């Protein structure tokens, strides 16, 4: 159902102004106001703040759908009785303008687990309220490897509208019904457009750049992971890991969470959902003191298995978009490209086949 159009940069600027004036929350990759800090997705007031093309923002779009902490409900106790009140969750319309396509794709990958038999209303409430307008990436930096996990700098997955930079504006692909509604609401800003040679050239160049960083076969990686639960590779990889979990927090697809109570007084408080990470020992620690994942090697293995074997086996999606954030942030210099490259070259251990397979 893809429809192709064109929007000039001045028109995109007016469109952004219209959105903000109309009360829509506008989110885009931007530097902190008045500062030189790292680009992150944040609420902005206009197009001039948004860094439409560039390296992936320091943090992903995840926080706009699964906030680092959120109230699930509040409680009030009185004389042995308890009253619960659902958190007043309202999801006002928001538009992400300038999402990197990998970050848009990530959100649609996580949709699968959030809808697995039990529909997570908090996640999908925000999903439904959000229109994602991505801008095709120029190919990222040396840590990017989207093409190695089946995506691309111009991937359409998860985006409602995909903009591709061309001279003076953007070639626009309207990808979803939500995208159609968005374009219809701003119809005067868009012009008819068709096949664009310039857009195709931009996309091809970006793909080439990302492909050069890592070429590997996800099927081979999965086969290795499913057959190599016990393997000397894990201990070696884990030596550089501090177990800090930074990789998981910046990851656009890591979605593990904790549920905790936060008392405000003796009688009142809230139950919250907070981001968590499989990289800490406490994540799996039993009340008895027993811990099924004793060492950091077990935790690294779990992270890779979840992303490249378990999730694909369960949901037919790789739980990684190749955004490279974990590589950029790791204080120990852990490099997922290196790991995947190495794993992709290891032969799957035949003796152990089936051990990790679904």
């Amino acid at each position, binding site marked *: 159902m893809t429809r192709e159009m064109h929007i000039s940069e001045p028109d995109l600027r007016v469109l952004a102004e219209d959105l903000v004036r109309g009360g829509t929350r506008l989110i885009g990759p931007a530097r902190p106001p008045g500062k030189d800090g790292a680009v992150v997705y944040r609420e902005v007031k206009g197009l001039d703040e948004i860094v439409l093309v560039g390296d992936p923002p320091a943090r992903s779009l995840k926080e706009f759908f699964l906030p680092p902490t959120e109230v699930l409900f509040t409680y009030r106790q009185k004389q*042995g009785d308890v009253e619960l009140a659902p958190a007043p969750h309202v999801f006002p319309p928001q538009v992400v303008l300038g999402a990197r396509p990998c970050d848009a794709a990530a959100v649609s990958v996580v949709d699968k687990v959030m809808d697995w038999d039990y529909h997570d209303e908090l996640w999908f409430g925000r999903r439904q309220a959000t229109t994602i307008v991505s801008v095709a990436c120029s190919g990222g930096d040396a840590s990017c490897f989207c093409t190695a996990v089946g995506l691309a700098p111009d991937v359409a997955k998860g985006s409602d509208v995909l903009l591709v930079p061309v001279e003076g504006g953007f070639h626009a692909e309207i990808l979803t019904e939500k995208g159609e509604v968005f374009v219809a609401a701003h119809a005067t800003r868009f012009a008819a457009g068709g096949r664009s040679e310039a857009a195709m050239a931009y996309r091809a160049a970006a793909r080439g750049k990302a492909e050069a960083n890592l070429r590997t076969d996800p099927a081979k990686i999965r086969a290795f992971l499913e057959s190599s639960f016990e393997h000397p590779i894990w201990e070696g990889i884990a030596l550089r890991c501090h177990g800090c979990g930074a990789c998981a927090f910046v990851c656009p697809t890591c979605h593990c969470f904790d549920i905790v109570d936060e008392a405000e007084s003796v009688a009142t408080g809230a139950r919250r959902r907070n981001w968590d990470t499989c990289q800490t020992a406490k994540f799996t620690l039993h009340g008895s003191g027993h811990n*099924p994942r004793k060492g950091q090697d077990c935790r690294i293995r779990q992270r890779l298995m979840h992303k490249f074997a378990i999730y694909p086996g369960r949901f037919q999606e790789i739980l990684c978009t190749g955004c490279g954030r974990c590589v950029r942030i790791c204080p120990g210099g852990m490099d997922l490209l290196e790991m995947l490259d190495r794993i992709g070259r290891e032969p799957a251990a035949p003796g152990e086949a089936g051990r990790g397979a679904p």
Partner: protein
Amino acid sequence: MNGGNLYQPHLVRIDEIVDETVDTRTLKLTFKDPMLAASFDFKAGQFGEYSVFGSGECTFCIASAPTRKGYLECSFKKVGRVTAAMRELNVGDTMGFRGPYGNSFPLEKMYGKSLVFVAGGIGLAPVRCVIQNALDLRDRFKDVTIICGARSVGDLVYKRELDEWAARKDVKLWQTVDPGGETGGWRGEIGFVPAIVEKARPGAIDAFAVVCGPPIMIKFALPVLNGLGFKDDAIYTTLENRMKCGIGKCGRCNIGPVYVCKDGPVFTAAEIKGLPPEF
């Protein structure tokens, strides 16, 4: 769903507290919403998330049987923050409950067969649920053998039911305590549970075994059962991993490809032998 979100529990009232041992307690809980109390249903082996508001949530199996309507029971040992808070509660106090979650013991599949229950310590809680369920439908099963043990006489849980089962003619009950755990008047066996299974020699023909207890007990009980002729797919157990959501989202309970909360907690020995050793 309750209150418009998956993670908001139903309110339950504590109707009865039983101290099973010095550190293990059973709570009998009733839904405060009479409609829910009447309609609540579950299957043997399923679990729930129990909460004390202000302290948090904890995962336990439902220790009572689905055939006994109108209430549910959980048994717990004080080991952490939530269980410590649970011990402070009194009859009449309010808790939270989410569930039932997870799969269950395939009782229908066991109809017409003999049942062998093997439990150690607090592992009797999930097994007790199946025992009660099976005894409530006693005419649908052949022989029922229960072999349960604890470190000491004082550590045996559900003593009132052990007496009840011991008195039944249609149940063969073997009780045991670890060597040194016996008291002067102890009339049961002395020895580790696997050794008593070997002594009891329950028949494996047309029979299923349900085994729960500490990992070390399961490790040594499985080969004994295999030796008696029980195939791995006729032996059921439950796995307990740390959980938070109970509904397959929070990513905590993976054992290799398995989500214990969704694919379990009930597994056959054959399934468990196919998993990586991460439980």
